[in-house]
């Protein structure tokens, strides 16, 4: 065993040192050491001479492979072979691409002799709009639905993805929803409309060799795996399997693992108890559990390396009312729970920042050991937190993976500068946007001076040089230091715009970023977040360009740059690329939506739960065209989704969430409560009710009613 790993418990060691030919199922709660065991097992395999490329590390999302990658990078004995890390999506894509010419015709593609085009999620949204917008208008689809069109289309995509993951034909989507959810004639029309749109989109893709996630997974499962040559390839390539967080994966992934297992020499399948948070993405713990019996040995890790006893008791006390039970834990949970009630939301934010200040400055807790969590993290909440913490000398970072790129200042800055550099588009930025872009671009430039710069130097024919200011006192006000950098930026843009225009927006972004914005003295220099966003924009624009270049032979009304900029501005392009997880300043307080924190698979010393009265802690996202449970594998055909199901789901969702959060917390949970929420209205979600019940029960048992309240 390598010394790079932490000390392992005997139970973990038994897993790691198990004979090479063994297929193991490992389960336990979060914090019980499962992933550490998985990593140790991987290193053990390598130590035993297993080539890295014969190990398949299978995860539901790529970020979950990160601890494995890091351990591999730090492992002294690693010879550099390529560990195969795959999600269902990436593996499907690889395999479909490899065996394309054997399956394309049978699958019904109109151009089987041509290569396929794999669509990212944002591209699917784009093509879905193109494919069905006219149809929706002509046929008067979705007339009684009050949803923004883009969101409506994304629910159709969601349905198709669920069908592929669960393994039923997309033609059954409408019937399934109608049977389970009912809702009368009008609702039946809506499901029929959703069904028709799904079919239309599938046809659109088949005619153009486009592969969205659902079609790709379908092809992989139905066509590729049916080819003996493909099965042999998989068998030859992946002799050892490590699959982590199988509970977060979908039934299609589970079916694939089930088919792979018999041919693997060794396997380690890791499953988290009380999880399955990605249900909106098809996570299905019940389906995962079927893999258990396909393994030679089943190992359960008890206990937690993370939770203190009061924290463990807190989890038990909070989950008990949700099961309709009395709590079994005898330990008093109140030392781990710190709460203060406020009337107004800003008072709560101040309290949170004060308490974090005390933790860091008085108790010596490291900032990165503190997580501030809320069901939703609006810009305003995030900003208020950042500002409150900043005023106390604390830095924070946040992660909101599916946020629209247009909402990111760095992305907007790049787009504004792109407009400026492409006068041929006839879409010069308005002065206001440019002033903001300049504050983002030139380090230390404030909004007042940026406005002055724009007032005097931005005209119809573009930017003028700083030396063009004839009024010396104006130059003095803006300062020469700023003027110098302004000129550098302007020169770059002028040189670019006067040269040969570059058709590829991604190349423009990349050059602007690396040649100017990331340099010392400019706004993106040493700004990790801006760097991430810029690179995400580059990747997204490049993906768009590739897809559209490919599509030009089918549709001639595509204007690459115009369509891309429109997509960003309509909020269709989201900031969800892997690197967000990696390149972030680590020594700061982590601010995120609760589920984002859970999927980052880490524990902290202290958690702050904000807006505890919000319904968002327990309610699922309501989407009238889709339903994660009715379209799941476990749903009984012909069953009806009832109010009792809805309520039970809400309780179970919250139960899993509070257990998962407490299992990722070492010392204390702080509850941020304000009678009036961010919007000035009062809400009463299930979490608040549950907390109250837990406290009342503990009071009835003879303890004092209040949790710890910090001194005034």
């Amino acid at each position, binding site marked *: 065993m390598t010394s790079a790993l932490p000390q392992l418990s005997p139970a973990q060691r038994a897993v790691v040192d198990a004979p090479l030919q063994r297929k193991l199922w490992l389960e336990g709660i979060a914090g019980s050491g499962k992933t550490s065991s998985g990593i140790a097992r991987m290193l053990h395999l390598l130590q035993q001479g297993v080539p890295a490329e014969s190990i398949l590390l299978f995860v539901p999302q790529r970020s979950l492979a990160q601890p494995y990658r890091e351990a591999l990078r730090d492992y002294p004995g690693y010879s550099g072979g390529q560990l195969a890390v795959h999600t269902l999506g990436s593996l499907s894509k690889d395999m479909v691409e490899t065996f394309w010419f054997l399956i394309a015709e049978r699958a019904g593609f109109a151009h089987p002799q041509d290569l396929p085009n794999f669509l990212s999620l944002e591209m699917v949204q784009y093509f879905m709009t193109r494919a069905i917008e006219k149809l929706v208008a002509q046929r008067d689809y*979705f*007339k*009684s*639905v*009050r*949803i*923004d069109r883009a*969101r409506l289309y994304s629910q159709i995509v969601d349905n198709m993805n669920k069908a592929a993951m669960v393994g039923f034909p997309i033609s059954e989507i409408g019937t399934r929803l109608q049977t389970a*959810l009912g*809702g009368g004639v009008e*609702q039946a029309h809506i499901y029929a409309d959703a069904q028709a749109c799904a079919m239309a989109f599938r046809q659109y893709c088949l005619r153009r060799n486009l592969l969205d996630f659902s079609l790709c997974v379908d092809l992989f499962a139905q066509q590729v795996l049916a080819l003996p040559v493909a099965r042999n390839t998989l068998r030859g390539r992946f002799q050892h399997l490590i699959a982590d967080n199988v509970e977060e994966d979908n039934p299609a992934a589970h079916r694939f693992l089930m088919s792979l297992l018999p041919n693997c020499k060794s396997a380690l399948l890791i499953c988290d108890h009380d999880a399955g948070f990605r249900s909106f993405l098809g996570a299905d713990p019940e389906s995962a559990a079927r893999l258990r019996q396909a393994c030679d040995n089943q190992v359960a890790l008890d206990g937690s390396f993370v939770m203190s006893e009061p924290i463990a008791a807190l989890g038990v006390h909070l989950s008990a009312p949700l099961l309709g039970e009395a709590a079994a834990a005898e330990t008093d949970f109140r030392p781990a729970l710190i709460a203060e009630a406020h009337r*107004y*939301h800003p008072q709560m*934010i101040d309290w949170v920042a004060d308490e974090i200040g005390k933790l860091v400055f008085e108790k010596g807790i490291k900032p990165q050991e503190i997580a501030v969590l809320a069901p939703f993290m*609006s*810009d*305003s909440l995030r*900003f*208020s937190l950042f*500002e409150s913490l900043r*005023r106390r000398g604390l830095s924070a970072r946040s992660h909101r993976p599916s946020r629209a790129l247009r*909402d990111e*200042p760095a992305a907007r800055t790049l787009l504004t500068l792109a407009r400026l550099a492409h006068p041929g588009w006839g879409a010069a930025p308005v002065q*206001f*946007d440019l002033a*903001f872009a300049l*504050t983002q671009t030139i380090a230390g430039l*404030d*909004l*007042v*001076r940026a*406005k*002055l710069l724009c007032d005097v130097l931005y005209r119809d024919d573009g930017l003028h040089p700083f030396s063009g200011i004839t009024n010396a006192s104006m130059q003095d*006000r803006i*300062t020469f230091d700023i003027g110098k950098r302004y000129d550098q930026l302007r020169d770059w843009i002028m040189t670019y715009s006067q040269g040969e225009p570059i058709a590829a927006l991604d190349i423009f972004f990349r050059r602007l970023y690396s040649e100017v914005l990331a340099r010392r003295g400019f706004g993106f220099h040493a700004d990790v977040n801006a760097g991430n966003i810029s690179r995400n924009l580059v990747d997204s624009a490049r993906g768009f360009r590739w897809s559209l270049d490919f599509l030009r032979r089918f549709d001639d009304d595509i204007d690459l740059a115009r369509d891309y900029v429109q997509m960003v501005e309509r909020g269709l392009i989201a900031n969800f690329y892997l690197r967000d997880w990696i390149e972030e300043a680590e020594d700061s307080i982590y601010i995120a939506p609760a589920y984002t924190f859970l999927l980052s698979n880490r524990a902290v010393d202290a958690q702050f739960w904000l807006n505890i009265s919000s*319904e968002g802690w327990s309610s699922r*996202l*309501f*989407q*009238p065209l889709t*339903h994660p449970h009715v379209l799941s594998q476990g749903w009984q055909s012909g069953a009806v989704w009832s*109010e009792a199901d809805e309520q039970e789901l809400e309780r179970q969702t919250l139960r899993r969430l509070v257990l998962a959060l407490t299992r990722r917390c070492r010392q204390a949970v702080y509850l941020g409560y304000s*009678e*009036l929420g*961010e919007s*000035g*209205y*009062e809400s009463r979600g299930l979490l*608040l*009710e549950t*907390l*109250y*019940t837990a*406290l*009342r029960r503990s*009071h009835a048992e003879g303890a004092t*009613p*209040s*949790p710890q*309240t910090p001194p005034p």
Partner: protein
Amino acid sequence: MFQPRPRQAQVLQYRGGYMGVAAVPGSGKTATLCALAGQLLNNAPLQDGQEILIVTLVNSAVANFARQVSDFVKHEGFLPGWGYRVRTLHSLANEIVRSRATAARIDDEVNIVDDRESSAILATAVDSWMRRQPAAADAWLGRDFLEKPHYRSNHWRNTVIESARNFIKRAKDELLTPEHLAEQLADSRQELSLAQMCMDIYDDYERALAYRGALDFADLIRLALRALRDNPDYLAALQHKYPYILEDEAQDSSRSQEAILRLLVGQGGNWVRMGDPNQAIYETFTTADPKYLREFIRSARVERRELPNSGRSTASIQQLANHLIDWSLAHPLIRIRDRQPLSLPHILPTPAGDPQPNPPDDPAAILLCPDAMSAEREAHFVAANCARWLDDHPTDTAAILVPRNARGTEIVRVLRALGTPYVENLNSASSTRAVVGSLAYMLRYLADPKNAQRLGDVYRVWRRDDRDDSAAAAAVDALVKDLRRIKQVEDLVAPRLRDWLDDNLQGESQVGARDRLASFREQIASWMRAADMPIDQLVLSLAGDIFRDANDIATAHMIALHLAQLQKQQPHMRLPDFAEELYEIARNKRKFRAWGDEEARFDPDAHKGKVTVTTLHKAKGLEWDYVAIVSVNNYDFPSAEPRDKYIGEKWYIRDELNLPEEALAQLASLCHDLPYREGFASLDARIDYAAERLRLLYVGITRARKSLCISWNTGRRNSQSEATPLRALRAFWDAEMRQRAQK
């Protein structure tokens, strides 16, 4: 400590079942209902997850209720406000709809459009319909107006909008979709062209809402009702959750609003409805109707209670209000009398020893003006009268109540000319406008951050809590002056080579100002960092820094939603455009209504020594020491007499038809399979309108604590006469005075 009067104590004996309480103005409805909630909470422990639901009319009342109930509740545990939930009907409906969004066919990000936006959508639908049906006006315009393009394009359009608006509201209240109506129209053998017109517009309007992913206020109620009806299990869960429902201002419930509460109460549930049918004044604008409360109170299974005692007004003012009830019960026109515009009980003074005794009586403080005056002269007369009162009673409150906003603007102009201090509470509530104004100043500064004038404005907003402290306010004024004189704003807000604070505030006496401005600078820097957030998020962030009051925060949230919606529709809009939008609203140039109804937020006692100018509708729920009611003529307060003119009967429409009412009659005929006869609805509407205006007059009279002045004018064409009820009141009062003099 609340000490219930004997009649209030009777209400507090409630233990369960249905109870209906008819309460007079100023009888302590809120206090009684809060005490009842507190008592129920203390005496009838609830199960886990159960709450008492208190439903009230306006958002501003919610916080008031919540605070008062909590005073009655013995606290257990650390969470305040536990065990009860106070909601307006709209916010309750919103909760229901959002928690069962799939049934309502919305998602989590559905927008609720405010009245203004809904009007804009409706206007677009009407324009589109008019383009399709250019000849439709021919059937309705009077002969003299058929060839006048202005009437065809503008006046006719306004009438169509008004008709369609009422039609759509009523259709939604009756849960009728355009598809239902289209089917019924196809089956109907009657000629119902107005219903056809409104149905076509309704269809377009609904499409436009659907495209925006939006709901209007009527949809909230409609969808909530549907969610409850279509989902019995969910309804049962809510019935369990709310074992008691206490309803305030029940006279303003519409049919569907009442239906929601009735469903939530369920068979054998516990429901207390409190209200004053005499104060039902929203029938014309909404689908509310006091008959629902009256019927409830009359029904056999309901325990009936009254709260007749009020300490608000002098005995003379109460006597006058009571006489209006008596007169209306014996109204000279039988059709109005049958409608029972006003009903008993009479207002009684508070019993001896009551903590809220009536003001000492002063019959001379009542002036019912007999003279025919022009509108201009009446405005001067009332303004002078009011100013005299305030001269004599500088710490008292005073209001001039007008039937319409336009009349209020005229009064304001006169007050301004006379130099009389006044507060205007017209198109938008002034508190709403104050919130909008504060945000507008901040956005305007961020849109042009080098502008010293605007920086001064923002400083004033930032120190808005100093307004009521004269010394602090003077200090703010002084600093605002200094800020406005700054030549180079960047030297203060983002100093690089020079720091304005170092150059200008060095002395020891200026330490305080320096510290304040240093904090202000930090705040400005923070707002500048926020300025590139999406507009709604920016507004919420700014609001979080400057507002503490719940209503202000709620209003700011509405503003944020409004601006987000605007941005969605007009993506080219930027911060300077949003700033101007808010600036226009703050200047009352553009209408903005916060969620539901915010008028009651106005606090008369915060404006002592000034004249409040507001509408009779907005005055509901408020009280002043001196009240003047103007324009009580037969146009604003008609009595269905031949001489009367009606605002709903447009001079350019043929045969004195009230087209919006005719459209509603066609809708009723369609839904209930009744014969439609042209003109009957217009005549009926006269009766309804006369009845509602009587209640409006009653509401106006009962706003006065010590002094009351009622006057009338002859209108723009010098053709209006004194309103019949005013004449009756005057006759009564003159006789009363003579009688008292003889005694």
